[in-house]
Every structure is written in C-alpha cells, then in structure tokens.
C-alpha cells in the first residue's frame, strides 16, 4: 500500500549545516502491516515519517500510497490518508481549545470545511462513546480545555483523533517517549487495540526494543538513512533484545548502541 522508492534527503544543502539524512531509502508496506521502527538517534526515522506526511519533501525518489503518487502532494492534502501521533504531547492537539472542538477538527479530516456549525449534537454523542473506550474519564469533560490534560491523556486523545476518520496509514513517532512508564504502556496497549480493531496499517517508531519486538508483525531497523534489517512473522516473534543489539553493532562497525536503546 505504501511504497517509498530510493528516497534521498539532505537538510540545509550547500551550507555548513548540510546533513545527508536519507540515502536511498526503500520501504514497502502491505495492507494491515503493523511495523515497528528502531534505530539510533539521527538515523532518519522521524524524517522518514515526516516525508510520508509531507512535512518534508524528498530530493530524489518517489512515494506512492495505494498506487497514488503523493511525492509532491502538500501536507494538508495528504492528511486525509494519514493519522499521526507525535513524540511531543503538545504537538497533536490545540491546547486552548476544548476536547470536543479538537475532536471535531479531527472528525472532519479529509472533508471540505465550510460555514456549517463546527460541532453538531450527534457528533458529541459519538465523541462520548469514543472517549469512554479510552477509559480515562474524559467523556465527562468534553468542554474542558485540552491544555488542562496530562501528557498521557493528550496522547490518548491524539490517538483517538488520528483514527476518528479511519486513516489508510497510521504514523506513530515515539508517541509514548514523553510519558511515564505506566502511562506509556497504557497508551501503547490502546494503540495496539485501535490498530487491531480497524485493521489499520501502521508505522510505529520506538526506542524501546522490547516494545518493538512485542508489538506489530514486522520490525525494521534504520541506520544512517537506510534500512539495515527487516524482519517479520515468526522470525520477529522469536527475536531477543540481544539479537537487535548485535545487529546494530555489526551495522555500525562495533559502535555501541546508544544508551537510550539499551536502557529502554
């Protein structure tokens, strides 16, 4: 369904800050794939996701989604195909607006917006139903400002917003990294539950190798802007963290996996 072919990306070309980030990246996802993505800091994971979302555009290469070439499509035009949750809990929601207003914005993803009222009565009932599923007590706080919520609540809400209109592809970029361990695992389980119930295709970046093995049906490891390891099915299920560390060390020529990768 998603196909990225031979993608190259250099940030700040021809300056002292020039940085070649993606170097001939090739990715192909099948319908219903739930892929976890791991790799050291600066490997280009976020850049890959941002490229899919249209935040950045590739210097070379092409991206197609369900056969449609979206390489040059502006971010807001391809948003209808994508659900996104970011690392920073502040990124995914509008803090000064109410929970229901945030949901209403997300409910209209991919639709024309006009001069109709911003939220309808029927919608509010739907939101209550959906919020109940999060089991965070948000269903009674529909008109509370999102800025009052905790990081975990905001991430759960963002996840709900990302999937309120079923996306073709769900992009999760370290969406539990800023949360405490307990909240993180709750949000992760919620993610898995939502992905399973709508049979979504998803890409989930994580620094937690255990999670990367535990969740999803496929795992890819990135190093210096390329995929160096791609494993799925039974083989993935039987992986151990030590296997991944070994792979990483081999690829990086003996360089140790960074602290964040080992500790988490």
């Amino acid at each position, binding site marked *: 369904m998603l196909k990225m072919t031979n993608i190259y990306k250099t940030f700040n070309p021809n300056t002292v800050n020039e940085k070649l980030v993606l170097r001939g990246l090739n990715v192909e996802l099948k319908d219903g794939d739930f892929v976890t993505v791991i790799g050291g800091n600066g490997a280009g994971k976020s850049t890959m996701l941002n490229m899919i*979302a249209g935040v950045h555009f590739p210097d070379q290469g092409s991206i197609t989604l369900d056969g449609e070439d979206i390489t040059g499509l*502006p*971010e*807001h*035009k391809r*948003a*209808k195909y*994508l659900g*996104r949750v*970011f690392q920073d809990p*502040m*990124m*995914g*929601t*509008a*803090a*000064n*607006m109410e929970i229901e*207003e*945030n949901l*209403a*914005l*997300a409910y*209209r*993803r*991919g*639709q024309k*917006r*006009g*001069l*109709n*009222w*911003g*939220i309808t009565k029927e919608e509010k009932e739907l939101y209550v139903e959906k919020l109940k599923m999060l089991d965070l007590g948000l269903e009674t706080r529909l008109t509370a400002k999102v800025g009052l919520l905790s990081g975990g609540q905001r991430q759960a809400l963002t996840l709900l*917003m990302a999937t309120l209109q079923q996306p073709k592809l769900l992009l999760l970029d370290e969406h539990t990294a800023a949360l405490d361990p307990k909240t993180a695992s709750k949000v992760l389980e919620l993610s898995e539950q939502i992905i399973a119930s709508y049979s979504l295709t998803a890409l989930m970046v994580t620094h937690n190798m255990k999670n990367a093995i535990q969740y999803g049906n496929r795992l890819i490891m990135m190093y210096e802007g390329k995929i160096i390891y791609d494993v799925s099915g039974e083989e993935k299920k039987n992986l151990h963290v030590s296997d991944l560390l070994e792979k990483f060390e081999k690829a990086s020529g003996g360089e140790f996996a960074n602290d964040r990768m080992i500790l988490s």
Partner: protein
Amino acid sequence: MNIVMAIFGAVSQGLTWAILALGVYLTFRILNFADMSCEGSFALGGSISAVLMVNFQWNPFLTLIVSTLAGAAAGAVTGFLHTRLKIPAILSGILTMIGLYSVNLRVMGQANTSLIGQNTLIMMIKGLLPEAKELGIKDSTLQTWVTMGVGLVFIFAVIMILYWFFGTEIGCCIRATGNNEAMVRAQGVNTDKMKILGLLFSNGLIGLSGALVTQSQGYADVSMGVGAIVIGLASIVIGEVLLLRVKNFAGKLIAIVVGSIIYRIIIAVVLQFGLATDDLKLFTAIVVALALSVPVLKSKKGMIRKEAR
C-alpha cells in the same frame, strides 16, 4: 469642560474605536499574529470613507462597505506576504502599513480630508431625530448620544457575526491555526489560507472602524492610524484584566468593548488632571506594557510566596 462631560464623550469614543480593538483581537489573540498592517488599514478605511463622501457625494453608509472591503484587501496583502513569500509576520504587517501610508495620501490627494458641512452618518441620523432644543439638551450632547447609538449598533452586529463565524467549521480552523499550526495541517487544513482569512477578516473590521471614527470625528487624516495597534491592545488587555473570569467567546468580545470604553475614560481623566496631549502615546504604551506583564508579575509573586514557605 467638566469631568462628567469628558467621560461622557470618552464613552462614545470608546464605542467607535471598539471595533478596531475587536479586529486587533482577531489577529493578536486568535491568530497569534502581531499584525502591524492595522495601522494602515484603519487610516485607509477613514480616508476612503471621507473621500467618497466629499469628492463623490456618496451616501455615508455605502462608504462603510467600501472601507471594510479595502481594509480586508490590505489584510490579504499582509497574509500573502507572510504565507506565500515567507516574510516574517511583523515585517509583513509593517510593509503593508508603510505602503498604505502612500496609498492613503494618494486616495485623499492630501494629508487630511475634512467632513465639515458634509452630511455625515452621525448628522444624517441626528437629522431624523427631534431638535436638541426640543429635547432640552445641548446640540453637542445629542450628537454624542447619536454617536454612542451608532457605535452600539455596529458593535452588536460585529459581535454577532464574529460569534457565528468563529463557531463554524472554518472559524474553528482559524482558531486552531493560531493555537497549533502543525496539528491543523495534520487534520488536512491549509493553514496559509486560514491565516489569510483571519487577516482579511481582522483588517476588514479595522477598515470599518476607521470609517466610523472618521464619520464621528468629522475628518480623516493619514496619520490617524498611528498607534492603532497599541490602542487596540490597550482595550484588549484592560478588558481581559477586568473580566478575567469570562470564558465564553461572546463574553470575551464584550470585555474588549468594555476595555475600549475604559481606556478612553482613563485617557479623559488623565487629560483632565493635566497630562499633555503630546504625552498620550507614551502613557498608552506604558499602560499596555504594564497590563501585558500582569501574568508575569503574578507568577513571580506566586513563586516568591512559594519560596517563602
């Protein structure tokens, strides 16, 4: 002039300038965009209204429509400079403002246009009412009452429209854009369009306000917009400080109108106490700086209290 009369005049002035403050609120608070072009679009609205009346004998009500549209166009220019040409927000506004200074001189062909002897909007409505003598009041008092009435009617209409518009799907997107652009784009909205629309709406209101002020003060001047953004901000922050608890959108808009009136009363009072007119702008700047720093000062105080414990 006694102080009661001064305050009476201040209230009517506050009402005619309140729409400017509402316009500034749209950009400064809702869109999170410090838009300097308002200084130019305010004078543009005034100049156009005056010239259409004096040179083309237009009905004053019709001139208001043209002034509003012209202000909106000025806002669109700023939006274009910022979103399409990627010029920083402040600079985009300043460019439009400076450009409009020449435009306004061209429009009027001179630095100011007097409406003396013209049948201004205020005069027209006053003409429909009984003579001041019959009512047992001074002519100037009747004129002030009419100005207040006109101000109130327009403010009511503007608040209704704003309340409706910012509750619609597009209005919600504009509000969200001022809050978190990345999120709005992720929801499939073109944030550039939303910014242009917000600027267009804001400057349209400011053009209208300039025209109303011109109609009520009886002249337009190229420099009538100087300091307009600060006057708008003063009204906003005074309103916010006084009506802190108001959470409802309509309530917030009303608070700004109240802020605009109180600002004018403060000015009237300090002038009565002997402040020189030349020092007014400095005084306003200080008031705004103080009011804007209230949240910071408050949190500092809170911190000191915590530390003391």
